[in-house]
């Protein structure tokens, strides 16, 4: 079957799911608790997919993703709450500013490798958090009041756009270049791929979508505080990608959905939740370091989606 046809089937399935949930919410079958769960899942899926592009596809180990989430959250909140701009515009502005932040952070740090890159991204995320902590205009440590604007529709279409853009990017020429960088940076360089350009590009796209998720995140609460965007938030996002499988888009989506639901049930026992998370992380790394899905996709299981990632076109 042709690739484009498969693509439209997935979009149609996604729209049907959206329609059902939207119908149930507007009909009152799903109360605040569940609609909130769906929105949280959507936000976490966007975060997981955006980090998947950076870690899973391009192989750049960033553990500061919460910093870009914070940028998107604060910038979009300033535009809606303080300046009264419409929500979708504010979301886009937040995402663009996060992408610019990604460029600023990425250009110097992506020259580093492995452990050093991880620590540098962690450091940058902390600097971003400390900057927000020290700006009185956004409330400092006490936090900032934000209007409640996120709805299931916004969240859903943001997820859809994120997944479409990132999966198409992965299967494009640029995506293949990113995979080459992941597999062997020196070899990719020798083959004429501009490795710095692709690393920064993937990082900026990842930051863009993290910023988009940030906008949805801040407008889903009534208040945002710098402490919400610390180390632990970055690790939360990291766990989705690692558990799902480094390099598997569907794996990170599934992990994000499952872990969001699990953490909702463990909401009253935050320590237990973190103990379980950390044990899962250690056990997965010791016994299955490629994550649950490896680099496979769910679509590989179906006959009609015989394409494998990385552009081996068999159909």
């Amino acid at each position, binding site marked *: 079957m042709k690739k484009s046809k498969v693509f439209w089937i997935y979009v149609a399935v996604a729209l049907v799911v959206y329609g059902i949930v939207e119908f149930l919410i507007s009909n009152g079958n799903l109360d605040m608790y569940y609609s909130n769960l769906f929105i949280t899942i959507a936000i976490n899926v966007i975060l997981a997919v955006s980090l998947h592009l950076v*870690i899973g596809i391009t192989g750049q*180990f960033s*553990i500061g993703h919460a910093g870009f989430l914070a940028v998107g959250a604060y910038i979009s909140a300033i535009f809606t709450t303080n300046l009264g701009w419409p929500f979708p515009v504010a979301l886009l502005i937040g995402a663009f500013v996060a992408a610019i932040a990604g460029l600023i952070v990425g250009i*110097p*740090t992506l*020259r*580093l490798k*492995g*452990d*050093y890159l*991880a*620590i*540098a991204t*962690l*450091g*940058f995320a*902390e*600097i971003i958090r*400390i*900057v927000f*902590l*020290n700006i009185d205009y956004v409330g400092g440590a006490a936090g900032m009041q934000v209007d409640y604007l996120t709805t299931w529709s916004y969240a859903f279409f943001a997820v859809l756009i994120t997944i479409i853009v990132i999966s198409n990017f992965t299967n494009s020429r640029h995506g293949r270049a990113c995979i080459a960088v992941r597999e062997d940076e*020196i070899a990719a360089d020798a083959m004429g791929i501009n490795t710095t350009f692709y690393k920064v590009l993937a990082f900026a796209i990842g930051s863009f979508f993290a910023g988009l998720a940030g906008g949805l995140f801040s407008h889903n609460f009534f208040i945002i505080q710098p402490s919400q965007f610390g*180390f632990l938030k970055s*690790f939360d996002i*990291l766990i989705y990608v*690692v558990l799902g499988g*480094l390099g598997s888009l569907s794996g990170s989506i599934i992990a994000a959905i499952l872990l969001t639901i699990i953490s909702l049930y463990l909401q009253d026992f935050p*320590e*237990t939740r*973190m*103990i379980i*998370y*950390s*044990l899962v*992380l*250690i056990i997965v*790394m*010791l016994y299955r*370091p490629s994550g649950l899905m490896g680099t496979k996709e769910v679509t590989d299981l179906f006959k009609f989606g015989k394409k494998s990632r990385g552009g081996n076109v068999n159909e």
Partner: protein
Amino acid sequence: MEWLQQLINGISLGSIYALIALGYTMVYGIIKLINFAHGDVFMIGAFIGFLAIARWDLGFFPALLLAMVVCAILGVLIERIAYKRLRNATRIAALITAIGVSLLIEYTTIFFRGAQPEAYPDVISNKTFNFLGAQISMQSIMILSVSIVLMLILQFIVHKTKIGKAMRAVSYDVEAARLMGINVDNTISVTFAIGSALAGAAGVIFGVYYTKIDPLMGIIPGVKAFVAAVLGGIGIIPGAVAGGMVLGVVETVVSALGFSLWRDAAAFVILILILIFRPAGIFGKNTREKV
């Protein structure tokens, strides 16, 4: 003499960073792993010291020794259980495991005793001396002398003993060391034990100096000590000490200039600058990358 005062405060803080950084740098030098759990070993050391002093009425030195012994055992356990299997795994897998171990220690501690902070009892008198117009507390002198003694002992172990020679050999070339009959696994365990014992000592000293400890206290000093290790050149023992001191003084100066809220950012700015302009650190030599 305001500046002398700040310099002394900075060196006191810096010696704590230096003690933690030594563990990072030794472990990184030998197995190329950022032991994220190191900051949490430091936290455990602070709590053992607290229990020893407040509950079991031990003095400062017995508490310090007890914390060092417990942390050494903890460090070896972490290495044996989690890291040993990962010797041949990818760097990312090892790093994620280290993050997992760190979270596990933090939240297991919270699970058993709650997240509330604990106030360290006074074990060293608060007497201050006047030195060239600067007020030096007994605590600062104590911290500094304990740190210096521990560093001298470390220097002795690494350069004058057989196990120290083995450690240097393993960090130079694991395969060659194994061929020369060195027990690599034991040497790595000893490295973890020594590094963790130093972190435990740093924990007790931190508790005495700052009087407040809590289960998540290890995260920030842990990351900053890593910054100190990178600053001095990771894998180089005198570098960790120098890096810790520089970082401590810089942080104190930033606070003294009235930017105390930006203090934590200063460490990360230093890290990023050093990574960009001199990734091998102050004492490191640049090495060419090979295919």
